[in-house]
């Protein structure tokens, strides 16, 4: 039973392009929630410490830090405009008091350090409190400066900038389980970096054909395996996933496994390839499964079985009879993401009309919910939604033709340990919690 918890962002309908949310990600403990937007800004929310008295809900998320991660650039050599939009944010596991995250736009990845300062030194001998230097001749006694508490200040600083390694547009970054390296993937290549080294990166996948006229597929997403530091997967616009083992060779152009569901050739249409393009790939926390999202469905693959997925869930099958219009308005190219819950028992993905869907892998039940300000009293239980494909529309159902295709939920995230989810509409961030008790 999902309840509304919070909503962040402006109420007005006129959305500035910079405010469009482009990525949402919880950190490894779930205490921090980061968002990136088209304007190149990152906003980090922190969960407040649980109030033992108010045990009916878990802590709320409040703004912790916000900074400009990327700025628009122009590549004069190639006449190429580089958007500042944050494509992905990935958190590093916490090693010390500071937090680290990687954020990337189309061309440049940055490592940001977010640190807290809650005390400052006072009582210098040579400086006044306001910073002005004292005349040394007026100093007659010495004192030891001490740290005194101050209002919490959260500072974000760029520690590494990983630039100039991608000719095409970066779509994914993924931190390795060794916590020392990470990969970045663009349309045609995947590079391996060391977090400490910015002037060098290794190319591990290159699918660029010698003759660009022969180009038939691009890389759409990539991710490292959660436990095996030598294994990663990448998905393609043709609906295939390749698993690669970095121990096999330096250049992983030959996959170790190829995951592809056979297609009935008689069912093939103009749209087949476009709707089979995988927009997101995510390993389960266990590492045993991976999930892919294509335009109409979510598929769960067992890494031990390449020839078909073990589970397929239809997200919005009713759109199959609307593909012509969806092609004309470009919606057919929308890239939806997907995510697992902490125990890998439920998966979630977004749809149109600000609807999002959850599929319980054990009970095989699914639910459609809506992110809307209509039910925004805390702890209001969300009412399940239903779309009527054709024929007689029941009360409370919405017909396919009434769906608002401009209200898309492309980015969702699930707290790694609890039933708290973050759902991004175009410019608002919703936080929902499972009803406690």
């Amino acid at each position, binding site marked *: 039973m999902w309840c509304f918890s919070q909503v962040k962002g402006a109420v007005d309908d006129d959305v500035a392009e910079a405010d469009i949310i482009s990525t949402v990600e919880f950190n490894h403990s779930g205490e921090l929630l980061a968002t990136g937007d088209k*304007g190149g800004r990152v*906003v980090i929310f922190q969960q407040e410490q649980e109030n033992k008295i108010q045990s009916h809900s878990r802590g709320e998320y409040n703004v912790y830090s916000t900074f400009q991660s990327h700025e628009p650039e122009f590549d004069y050599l190639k*006449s190429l405009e580089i958007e500042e939009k944050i494509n992905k944010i990935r958190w590093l596991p916490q090693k010390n008091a500071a937090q680290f995250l990687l954020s990337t736009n189309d061309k440049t990845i940055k490592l940001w350090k977010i640190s807290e300062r809650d005390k400052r030194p006072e009582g210098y001998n040579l400086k006044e409190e306001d910073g002005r230097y004292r005349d040394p001749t007026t100093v007659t006694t010495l004192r030891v400066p001490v740290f005194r508490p101050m209002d919490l200040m959260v500072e974000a600083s760029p520690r590494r900038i990983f630039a100039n390694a991608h000719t095409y547009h970066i779509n994914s970054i993924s931190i390795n389980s060794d916590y020392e390296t990470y990969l970045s993937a663009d349309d045609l290549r995947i590079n391996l970096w060391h977090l400490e080294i910015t002037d060098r990166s290794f190319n591990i996948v290159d699918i660029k054909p010698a003759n660009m006229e022969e*180009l038939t597929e*691009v890389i759409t997403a990539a991710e490292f395996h959660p436990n095996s530091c030598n294994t990663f997967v990448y998905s393609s616009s043709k609906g295939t996933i390749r698993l690669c083992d970095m121990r096999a060779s330096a250049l992983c152009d030959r996959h170790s496994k190829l995951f592809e569901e056979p297609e009935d050739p008689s069912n093939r*249409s103009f749209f087949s390839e476009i709707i089979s393009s995988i927009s997101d790939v995510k390993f389960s926390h266990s590492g045993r499964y991976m999930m892919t999202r294509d335009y109409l469905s979510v598929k769960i693959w067992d890494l031990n079985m390449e020839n078909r997925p073990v589970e397929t869930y239809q997200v919005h099958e009713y759109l199959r009879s609307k593909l012509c219009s969806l092609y*004309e308005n470009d919606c057919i190219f929308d890239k939806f993401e997907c995510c697992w819950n902490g125990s890998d028992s439920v998966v979630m993905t977004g749809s149109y009309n600000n609807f999002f869907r959850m599929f319980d892998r054990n009970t095989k039940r699914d639910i459609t919910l809506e992110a809307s300000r209509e039910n925004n009293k805390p702890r209001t239980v969300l009412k399940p939604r239903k779309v009527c494909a054709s024929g007689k529309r029941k009360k409370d159902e919405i017909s396919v033709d009434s769906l608002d295709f401009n209200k898309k939920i492309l980015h969702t995230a699930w707290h790694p340990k609890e039933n708290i989810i973050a759902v991004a509409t175009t410019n608002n961030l919703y936080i929902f919690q499972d009803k406690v008790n």
Partner: protein
Amino acid sequence: MSAEVPEAASAEEQKEMEDKVTSPEKAEEAKLKARYPHLGQKPGGSDFLRKRLQKGQKYFDSGDYNMAKAKMKNKQLPAAAPDKTEVTGDHIPTPQDLPQRKPSLVTSKLAG
């Protein structure tokens, strides 16, 4: 764009009409082909992918721009049509035409 009525049904089109009954996807494909008869044979292929790879390409030649300015003297340069997507032909982009690329100095509304 007005829908074009298909020519007299050939054997292929007969099969397509049969497919309409069984596959909504094929029905949608027929609709699309009726509206855009010249749509490429390779749907997910090179053209579409190459367009994706070229995202962000903007052409501005300062030499052309300055030459055109000098030639025209006080007259206005031929301006772009309001709904241009690509810069082609006679049009010389002016700084006014190119969208302003300034970083957001405003804090995100999510933090408000």
